[in-house]
């Protein structure tokens, strides 16, 4: 069943079918929120709240455009709102693990093979990039998330953000340039 069929049925009263939409898009929606809102532990709760907003907005969907484009617009707007509301708290990925898991992680780390050092560098780099990403201004953060993390095409991004494809190209360039600048600053600071 395609998205539009499901939505028509949901609007006609078969509301439980909305779970198919959730299952279809939850990972991407979660990923956008997770990247955008600063890797905090309540991202799942925010993702659910966004889906609830989408559910109650279904009767505003015009069936003229793609449902996913319409839905991602809501996700992007809500992510921006959430990030603004709480002034984006930056925490490490490790906050998602409990103390017990931390201990296990250390054991795994010690037991790991000769790639240990390389893995440690990669992990550190990821951490640095994540922390830098959330420091970017919204326009840059969202375009990098959509393109480099979620792998949406230029055309899809243009539709979601309601901008021209050429603007996507330029904005991506500027976002990468800014990201590079901040990473350089962070690297110097850490040294």
């Amino acid at each position, binding site marked *: 069943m395609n998205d539009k069929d499901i939505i028509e049925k*949901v*609007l*006609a*009263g078969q*509301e*439980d079918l*909305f*779970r198919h939409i*959730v*299952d279809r898009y*939850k*990972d991407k929606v*979660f*990923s956008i929120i*997770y*990247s955008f809102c600063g890797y905090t532990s309540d991202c*799942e709760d925010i*993702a*659910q709240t966004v*889906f*609830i907003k989408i*559910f*109650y907005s*279904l*009767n505003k969907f015009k069936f003229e455009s793609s449902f996913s484009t319409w839905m991602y617009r809501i996700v992007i707007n809500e992510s921006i709102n959430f990030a603004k509301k709480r002034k984006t708290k930056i925490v490490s*990925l490790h906050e*998602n693990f409990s103390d017990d898991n931390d201990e296990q992680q250390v054991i795994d780390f010690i037991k790991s093979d000769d790639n240990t050092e390389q893995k440690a560098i990669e992990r550190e*780099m*990821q951490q640095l*990039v*994540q922390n830098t*990403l959330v420091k970017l201004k919204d326009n840059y953060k969202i375009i*990098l998330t959509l*393109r*480099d*993390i979620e*792998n949406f095409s*230029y055309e899809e991004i243009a539709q979601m953000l309601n901008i021209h494809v050429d603007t996507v*190209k*330029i904005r*991506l*360039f500027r976002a*990468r*340039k800014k*990201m*590079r600048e901040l*990473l350089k600053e962070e690297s110097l600071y850490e040294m």
Partner: protein
Amino acid sequence: MKCENAEVMISLHVDNKLSLEEVTSLMEHLNSCKKCRENYKDFKDIKIVLSDLKIPETSSAFTDSLMKRITDSKKSSGIVFANSLKKHFVMAASFIFIVAASVIFLPSKTQDTGALAEYYLNYDQNASIEEIYDEDIVSFLLLY
């Protein structure tokens, strides 16, 4: 090629958005410009690291828990799509009733205003029947 142009081309190249001709032109510039070569490496690294970011999956209970929240919120707010349709139906019915009532009652009311006009005409001999009649119809319509 100028470095400013090369920078934009580099960003497009890491997304494989350049034609063969453009790639050749960019490579020629990169061969002769150390700064742009560094930019190219950095842009490529940023893209690789971002695309490899480990984003945790949603929990297995995500969908069930979300559907429960939707059900609970509907119970507390009373919002249901079927109910919203009913609401629209009630609004439409109310509108039709008002229009029908206006059509039915307007002639009888104008007859009443005719009598009223007679009264006012006796009260103010200077006023014409048409003037008083029109004023009362306007007053009647304003009530709605």
